[in-house]
C-alpha cells in the first residue's frame, strides 16, 4: 500500500514536472509577451526598455530556472498585466470555479445516474430511447448557446434569474445547468452502459434468486458495481469537459473563475499567471484523479489489496 502510494506520488510528480516544463516553453514559443503586455505603438527603444523591465531579455533557460525558483517564494511572481502576485490572482479565482464545478457535478450526478439507470433497464422500450434522446440533447447544444438561450429566456424576458457574477444561490442556477449539460449527457450515457454491463452479470441473477425486489437488486447490487466503473471515468473525462466548459460559461456569466482567467492570460500572454494557472488546474486535475483512483481502489475491494502476502 505504501509503495503504491509512493508510486502514485512519483507519477504525479513527474506528470507535474512535465506540465511545468511544457507550459513554460509553450508560453514562450507562442509569441513575445511584449507584443501583448505593452501593447501598441511604442518605439523600439521603449520596447527594449520594457522587455528588460519584464525580464524577458534573459536567456530562456535562466527564465526557466527563475520560474522554477518562483515556486519557492509562495507568490509565483508578478502578473505582467495585473501587477500583483500571481498566487493572489489564481487563488482568488479558484474557489468560484470550484464552487461552480461542484454544483455542476452534483447536478450531474443527481440527474444522470437515475437517468442512466432508467435508460439501461428499459433499454429496449421507448422510455430508454427517450431518456437517451434527452441526454443526447445535452451533448448536442454548444454550451454557450445553451447559456445565452437560458439567459435570454430566464433573465432577459422573464427576469427571474440574475446573470452577473456569483453573488447568491440564484446566480448558480444558469451557469450550473449550462455547465452540467454536456456532463449530464456524458455521464448518463456512461451510467447506462456501465449499468447494462452489470445487468447481464451472473450475480444479478443470484440476487434475484434470493428473492430481492427488483429495485433492491438494481440499486444495491447493480449500482454498487456500476458505480465503481462510473467513478473511474468521472475523474478522467469530467475534469476535461468541465475545464473546457468553464471557460465559456465563466465568460458569459461574468463568473470570476479560473477558466476565464486562463484564457485571458493566454490571450494576453501574461506568462506568470498563465503558467501558474495552468499548473494549479493541472495539479487540481491530477489530485482529483489521484483521489478518484484512491476512491476507486477503495470502492473496489478487488483493488484494495493489490497483492496478498503468501502464507
Amino acid at each position, binding site marked *: 500500500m505504501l509503495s503504491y502510494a509512493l508510486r502514485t506520488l512519483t*507519477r504525479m510528480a513527474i506528470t507535474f514536472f512535465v506540465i511545468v516544463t511544457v507550459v513554460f516553453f509553450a508560453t514562450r514559443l507562442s509569441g513575445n509577451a511584449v507584443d501583448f503586455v505593452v501593447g501598441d505603438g511604442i518605439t523600439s527603444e521603449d520596447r527594449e526598455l520594457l522587455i528588460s523591465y519584464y525580464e524577458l531579455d534573459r536567456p530562456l533557460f535562466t527564465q526557466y530556472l527563475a520560474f522554477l525558483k518562483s515556486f519557492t517564494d509562495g507568490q509565483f511572481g508578478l502578473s505582467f498585466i495585473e501587477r500583483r502576485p500571481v498566487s493572489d490572482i489564481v487563488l482568488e479565482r479558484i474557489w468560484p470555479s470550484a464552487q461552480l464545478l461542484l454544483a455542476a457535478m452534483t447536478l450531474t450526478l443527481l440527474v444522470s445516474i437515475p437517468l442512466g439507470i432508467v435508460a439501461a433497464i428499459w433499454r429496449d422500450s421507448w422510455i430508454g430511447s427517450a431518456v437517451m434522446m434527452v441526454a443526447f440533447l445535452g451533448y448536442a447544444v454548444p454550451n454557450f448557446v445553451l447559456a445565452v438561450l437560458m439567459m435570454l429566456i430566464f433573465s432577459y424576458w422573464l427576469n427571474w434569474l440574475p446573470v452577473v457574477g456569483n453573488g447568491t444561490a440564484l446566480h448558480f442556477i444558469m451557469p450550473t445547468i449550462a455547465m452540467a449539460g454536456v456532463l449530464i449527457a456524458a455521464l448518463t450515457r456512461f451510467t447506462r452502459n456501465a449499468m447494462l454491463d452489470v445487468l447481464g452479470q451472473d450475480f444479478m441473477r443470484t440476487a434475484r434468486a434470493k428473492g430481492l425486489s427488483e429495485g433492491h437488486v438494481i440499486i444495491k447490487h447493480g449500482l454498487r458495481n456500476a458505480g465503481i466503473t462510473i467513478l473511474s471515468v468521472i475523474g478522467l473525462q469530467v475534469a476535461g469537459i468541465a475545464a473546457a466548459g468553464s471557460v465559456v460559461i465563466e465568460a458569459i456569466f461574468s463568473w470570476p473563475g479560473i477558466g476565464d482567467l486562463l484564457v485571458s492570460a493566454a490571450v494576453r500572454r501574461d506568462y506568470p499567471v498563465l503558467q501558474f494557472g495552468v499548473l494549479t488546474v493541472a495539479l487540481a486535475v491530477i489530485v482529483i484523479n489521484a483521489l478518484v483512483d484512491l476512491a476507486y481502489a477503495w470502492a473496489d475491494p478487488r483493488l484494495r489489496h493489490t497483492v496478498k502476502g503468501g502464507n
Partner: protein
Amino acid sequence: MTHSIAVPATSLPATAYRLWRGADPIRKVAILIGVMLVVLAIFAPLIAPFDPNAQSLISRLRPPLGFERAKEGYLLGTDELGRDVLSRSLHGLQLTLMLAGLGATLGLLFGGTLGLLAGVVGGRTEATVMAAVDTQIAVPFTLVALFLLAILGSSIEVIVLVLGLAGWEQYARIVRGEVRRLMNMPFIEAARAAGAGPLRIARHHLLPNIVSPLVVQFTLSLSNIVLLESTLSFLGLGVQPPTATLGAMVGIGRDYMPSAPWIVVAPAMMILFITFAVQILGDWLRDGADVKLRAR
C-alpha cells in the same frame, strides 16, 4: 499476393444493417437526419443560392422570409455583413463536417498508434505514452488549443491539427487498454504459438478486435470536435473569417442572439442535428458491437 483482410460478419455495414432493422423509430429518424445532413453538406455548393462570402452591406441583418424587412431570395435572412445565412450554413456544414471528419481521423491515427505502441511494446514506451496521456488529461484542452493556435497561427490546417489532437488521449487510452486486454487473450498466445510476429499480431489479431470500440469513440469525438470548434470560435480562435463554419457562425453570431437570432438558429440547429445523429449512431454501434448484449 493480394491480402484480402477478413471482412467479419460483424463488419460495419452488416452491423449497421442489422441495427437498422431492429431500430426504433426515433433512432431511424435521427439517422435519416444524419444522412440528410451529409447529403446537404456534399452538395452544398450546388444547393446554396448565393456565394457564402458575398457581402451586401446595405442589407445587413435582414430576417428570414416571412418576416418584416425580409429580403427577397434570402430564405433564412442575412447576417451581420449582409451575407446569405442559408448559403453560409450550407457551406459551413460542409466545412464543419470535413473538419470534424479530418480531426477525428487524425486523433484516431495519432492516439490509436500511440496506444497500440504502448500496449504492444509495453515497458518504457508504455510508461512514456501513458505519462503523456496523464499530462494531456491534466491540462485543459482549451489551453492546448490556445497555445497551438498561437504558435502555429489559425489556418485551416492548424485547426484540423488542433481538433485532431483533441481527444487523442482517449483513443490512446482505449486502444492501449484494449490491446492490453487482448494481449492476455489466449488467441493472441495462439497466434504467437503459430509463429506470428508482432506485426502480424498487431495487424491481424489486435486491430480487427479494436475496431468496434474505436468506431464508437470515433463517433463520440466527431461530435466533440464539432462542439470544440464552436468553442474555439467563441473564443475567437476558430477558422478565420470570412470562411463559414457552423461553429464560427454560432460563435460570432452569439452577440446577435437577442437582436437577430436567425443568424444563429440555422447553424445551431445543424450542430444540434449533427451531434445528435452522431451520438445516436455511436450509441447504437456500441450496442451492436457488444458481444454480450448480442448474445441475448
